[in-house]
């Protein structure tokens, strides 16, 4: 068992596009759930809007990369409006069921063979990178040190993603200390009290759903820029993973979602390297190395349960500002 190799692989995961994508999605979900109290279970749907919006614009309509990004964001706005109008007046768990259903509808529409020329059905989409890579300001070469050594094509989506993440965190920070943010948090604590103060609760909830949805979609986009678009990535389990990352870091915090996403993926990378190695040297005699990979996800489920029960405020959260209103 090469422990140094395992540690190196684990460290490299911190800058992986999927980690940055999850961090962005978790920041968006923090706006929905942590600050507004909306139970959005359709995170994967929002991410799919960003990813497919980008890839289809480039491949089918030949849009330049920056316009394609805007199309992905616009798709997420439309998705948020379609979801929000029927459900935001209803009780929280209805929103949960509708968002999870809408995300599945979106995934099935991307997966079906009926639209294969546009969506690529089960194979997904790839080969849309040319224009984005042409905009890469980095001269060719390998940069970085230790486990973080990449060439210019690998650095570009990572840097771009990190910049977007920083912008998203800054935006949420600024919003949450503004009067708008105080109304939003008021809605989370007591909707009726905010309504009694003359605020249009429905409108505020809708704005929060759109803002968070855009950030989630940018997360899906960053992953699409780093790899390819595959409908298998947008299953409901992805939504649950983002929830795990968010609740781990702290739902009603600015940096909690980022920290949660990094921990989530670092632990995933560590276990996916460590567990097969442990199986190989015979320390896990009941498992095959294939089964040890499933053990990772069993642990994710168990962690989600334990966090919600014993540490609902998350790592960075304040126990007084509990995000679960009874």
């Amino acid at each position, binding site marked *: 068992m090469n422990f140094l190799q395992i540690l190196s692989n684990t460290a490299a995961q911190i800058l992986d596009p999927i980690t940055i994508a999850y961090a962005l999605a978790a920041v968006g979900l923090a706006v929905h759930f942590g600050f507004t109290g909306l*139970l959005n279970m359709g995170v994967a749907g929002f991410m799919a809007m960003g990813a497919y919006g980008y890839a289809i614009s480039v491949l089918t309509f030949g849009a330049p990369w920056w316009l394609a990004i805007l199309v992905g964001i616009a798709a997420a706005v439309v998705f948020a409006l379609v979801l929000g*109008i*029927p*459900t935001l007046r*209803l*009780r*929280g*768990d*209805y929103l*949960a*069921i*509708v968002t*999870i*259903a*809408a995300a*599945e*509808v979106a995934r*099935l*529409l991307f*997966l*079906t*063979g*009926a639209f294969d020329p546009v969506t690529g059905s089960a194979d997904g989409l790839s080969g849309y990178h040319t224009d984005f890579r042409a905009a890469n300001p980095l001269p060719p070469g390998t940069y970085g040190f230790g486990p973080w050594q990449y060439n210019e094509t690998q650095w570009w989506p990572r840097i771009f993603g990190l910049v977007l993440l920083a912008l998203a965190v800054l935006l949420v920070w600024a919003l949450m200390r503004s009067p708008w943010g105080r109304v939003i948090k008021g809605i989370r604590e007591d909707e009726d009290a905010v309504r009694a103060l003359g605020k249009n609760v429905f409108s505020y909830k809708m704005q929060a759903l759109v803002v968070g949805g855009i950030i989630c979609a940018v997360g899906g986009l960053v992953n699409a820029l780093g790899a390819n678009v595959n409908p298998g990535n947008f299953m*409901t*389990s992805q939504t*649950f993973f983002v*929830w*795990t990352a968010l*609740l781990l870091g702290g739902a009603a915090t600015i940096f909690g979602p980022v920290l949660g996403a990094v921990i989530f993926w670092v632990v995933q990378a560590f276990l996916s390297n460590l567990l097969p190695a442990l199986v190989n040297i015979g320390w896990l005699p009941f*498992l095959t190395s*294939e*089964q040890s990979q*499933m*053990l990772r*996800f*069993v*642990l*994710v*489920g*168990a*962690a*989600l*349960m*334990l966090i*919600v*029960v014993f540490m*609902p405020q998350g790592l960075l959260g304040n126990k007084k500002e509990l995000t*679960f*209103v*009874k």
Partner: protein
Amino acid sequence: MAITRSAPTRRLPRIVVVLLTAVLATLAVLLSTAAPAGAAEGDPYRISGLITLDGAPLEGVTMTVDGPGGEQTAETNAEGRWEVYVPERGDAVYTVTLDESTLPEGIAVIDETGADESPNVREVTLGQISSVVVNFFLGEGERNTTSFLDQFVERVVNGINFGLMLALASIGLSLVFGTTGLSNFSHAEMVTFGALAALLFSVTLGWPVWVAMPLAVALSGVFGYALDTALWRPLRRKGLGIVQLMIVSIGLSLALRYVFQMFIGGGTVQLPGVGAEKIPLFGAVRLSVIDMASMGIAVAVIVAYALWLTKTRIGKATRAVADNPSLAAASGIDVDAVVRVVWIVSAALAGLAGILWAYFRPGIRWDMGSTILLLIFAAVTLGGLGTAWGALIGALIVGLLVEVSSLWIPADLKNVGALVILILILLFRPQGILGRRERIG
């Protein structure tokens, strides 16, 4: 205070440990003997063929292959070749259908002997080989077409079968929601558990079906009891909100799903009797003995459940708790005991639904429950969350909708219709068909 409270909590884990150990130990038997049927992705076995007419290849002929692993379609290429990859060989039966409407005008699949009424449909098994070639003989002739009405009736019968199965699962979910307020996402895994228990008793241990299936349902009930005792009751005592409980159920669902995958792998496993001969009844309706038995069992169980809920003491108490837990407690009903019974009934019904679902799909997969979870939610919401009969009506509507809609929309989109209905019903009548306005709060 501390002493009186610690006594029950110290007693509980022992029961739980015994029950969970029993459940896990039985599953461990499964692990040691049931071999995974194949890989989930990049299926290893091939069904292929060559479509030619008088030696010239035909392009763009649509082939449909249905069987374990789901329905797949393929089109012939410029050389007239088509192929699909499937997850299983051995006894697994694949139905290969040539879509005659994609053939040139006046051309059909012919059968020289004339014995086969539908020569464009073939059933193949791979046995021990890893690829098989299916050829059709084309010529001028009468096409084998089913009239629209016959197709429609066939879909309706299928839809009722599917809807009854869905109803069993939905009733349980609705019952738990009504009494505890929990939107239980792990209900899907309770469905899968029933199918796995049936697999354990009937295949791994080789017991006869009439012993194995009731035992599997009973074990599902025990599973529900164990979950309530180990997880849900302590959390209710801790005073967790319904949102927290819902997220706990999501975590449980994830964990259980992958535990199941550790036991049976990523492939499809079959229960005994799958692929039994379909008997033509009327029109285009062909049902196997298993289909008929499954519909009969579902109807009988639903009637029994209705009698239980309306006539027995505990059934009446359940409705009282669903209506108003505090009032029920004040009138001397032991709410905790009622909720425990509700979990057992809910899990047993879900387990039975899982067995029927394993025959309807057909096949057992680690994520088979989660593929119908949203349909179950759609059925419950459509009928009215928390109402007793709404789930039944909602499930039948969803079942019919899913099956009948595939007459017009591609088969891989047939679940979309039900989910769109779910969203629309929340837009126009959020309390569902039978729900009362106050419940939507």
